C-alpha cells in the first residue's frame, strides 16, 4: 500500500495544445498521454531544504552595487496541498523581469533598459507552516511576438517541488486588475475563469511594510494525497 496523489485538480491546468499561444502548436504532444499507476517512482521526489539556500537569496533587491529601480514589493504566502495542509521545507524558485519589463537574459531583445542592480532570480524554502516570502521589485509588462501587439501582463515565474515528483509545479503569479488579462494567451490557456483567478495575487495591507514596500499575498496549492491510501494494484 502506498500513499497516492489525487487527480481532482487536473482540470485547473491548461491543455498542452492552446492554439492562441502559438508555440504550443508545435510543442504539444499529438498522442494521448498514457495513464500509469502511481509507484514509488512517482510518490517520491527531490528533497531540498533550508541548508541548500541562504536567507538573503529571498531578497532580489540586494546583492548588487546599488538598489534596483521600481516599486519595491513583498510577495508572500503559503504553499498548501489540496487538503489544506501546509507544504513545509520545500524549495521555491522565482524569476522575473525588471521594472521596465526587461529580463537580464541574452534572448530578451526588448528595447527597455537593463537594470544593472537587478538580476530577477530568487529562492527560498518554506517554513514549517508552508510560508514563503520574497522581497523584490514589481515587474513590468513587456511585448512578445506571439501576435501583433502582444504584451504579457506583469508576472513572476514560480517553481515548486512539494513532497513528490507528482507535485512539481511551475506557474506564474499575476497582479490584480491587470488590463492585459483579456489579451494574454498564456494566462487564458487555463480554461476555467475561477482557476485563472487563482494565479492572481492580492494586495495585502497587512503584508505592506510602512514607509518601505507594498505587500502582496499569493497562496499556492499543489496536488494533495488521496484521502485513503489506495492499493497500488488498483490505483
Amino acid at each position, binding site marked *: 500500500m502506498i500513499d497516492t496523489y489525487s487527480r481532482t485538480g487536473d482540470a485547473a491546468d491548461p491543455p498542452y495544445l492552446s492554439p492562441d499561444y502559438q508555440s504550443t502548436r508545435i510543442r504539444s504532444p499529438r498522442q494521448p498521454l498514457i495513464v500509469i499507476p502511481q509507484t514509488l517512482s512517482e510518490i517520491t521526489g527531490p528533497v531540498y531544504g533550508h541548508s541548500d539556500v541562504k536567507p538573503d537569496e529571498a531578497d532580489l533587491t540586494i546583492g548588487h552595487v546599488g538598489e534596483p529601480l521600481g516599486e519595491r514589493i513583498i510577495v508572500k504566502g503559503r504553499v498548501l496541498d489540496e487538503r489544506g495542509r501546509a507544504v513545509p521545507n520545500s524549495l521555491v524558485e522565482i524569476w522575473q523581469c525588471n521594472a521596465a519589463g526587461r529580463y537580464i537574459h541574452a534572448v530578451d531583445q526588448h528595447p527597455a533598459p537593463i537594470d544593472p542592480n537587478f538580476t530577477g532570480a530568487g529562492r527560498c524554502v518554506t517554513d514549517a507552516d508552508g510560508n514563503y516570502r520574497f522581497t523584490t521589485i514589481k515587474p513590468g509588462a513587456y511585448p512578445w511576438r506571439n501576435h501583433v501587439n502582444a504584451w504579457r501582463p506583469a508576472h513572476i515565474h514560480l517553481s515548486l517541488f512539494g513532497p513528490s515528483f507528482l507535485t512539481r509545479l511551475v506557474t506564474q503569479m499575476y497582479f490584480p486588475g491587470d488590463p492585459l488579462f483579456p489579451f494574454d494567451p498564456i494566462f487564458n490557456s487555463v480554461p476555467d475563469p475561477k482557476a485563472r483567478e487563482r*494565479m492572481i495575487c492580492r494586495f495585502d495591507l497587512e503584508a505592506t511594510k510602512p514607509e518601505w514596500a507594498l505587500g502582496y499575498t499569493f497562496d499556492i496549492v499543489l496536488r494533495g494525497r488521496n484521502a485513503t491510501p489506495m492499493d497500488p494494484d488498483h490505483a
Partner: protein
Amino acid sequence: MPERTPSQTVGPYLHIGLTQGRYGRTEIVGSTVADPALAGTHIRIEGRIVDGEGNAMPDAVVEIWQADSEGRYAHPADGRPLASNSFRGFGRCPTSEDGTFAFDTIKPGPAPGPGDSTQAPHINVGILARGVLKRLFTRLYFPGEPANAADAILALVPAARRDTLIARAQPGKPGTYRFDIRVQGGNETVFFEA
C-alpha cells in the same frame, strides 16, 4: 478545501530562475547526479529535444529523478537507508542552442513496482519549456535489460511506441546512453500522467 494553482509555461527566460548558478548563485540543482565516488555503474545520458517540425528546442529544461544503484529513492516515502548521503537522485539540465542535454549519473537499480512486482531500472524524466504549458513526464529505460519485458509501466505502452522510452547504447562510448525526446510528430515520445 483549497483548489490547485494552475500550471503555466516556464517561458524562454527559465535559466534565470532554474539555473541560478549562471547568475551568480551557488548551483544547487545541476546535471551531475552522482559524485564519481558513489557506488554503482556510472553512466552518462545524452539527448536532444525536438519539436513537431523537427527543430531543436533550445529553451527547455530536463529534470530527472531516479533511484540509487540498489533501487532506493532518497525520500522518506521510500524509507530504506541509502548507502550514501550525497546521493539525492535529482538532476536538472537546460538544453543548449542545439537542443541537447546531458547528465552524469549512475544506473538505477530495480525499484518496487505495483503490488509485489519490481520495476525495470528506469529514470523519471520531466520536461519544461517555452510553449509547454505543463510539465511533460516520461521515463527512460535501458536497452538489453531483461527486466523490461516484465515492467508494469512499459506494459501499458503500445508495443509500437515502447522504443521511444528505451535509451540507446552509444557505440565507442561505453556507459553513455542516448535518449532523444520528440515532443510532437513522427515517433513522438510517450508521455505519461499519473
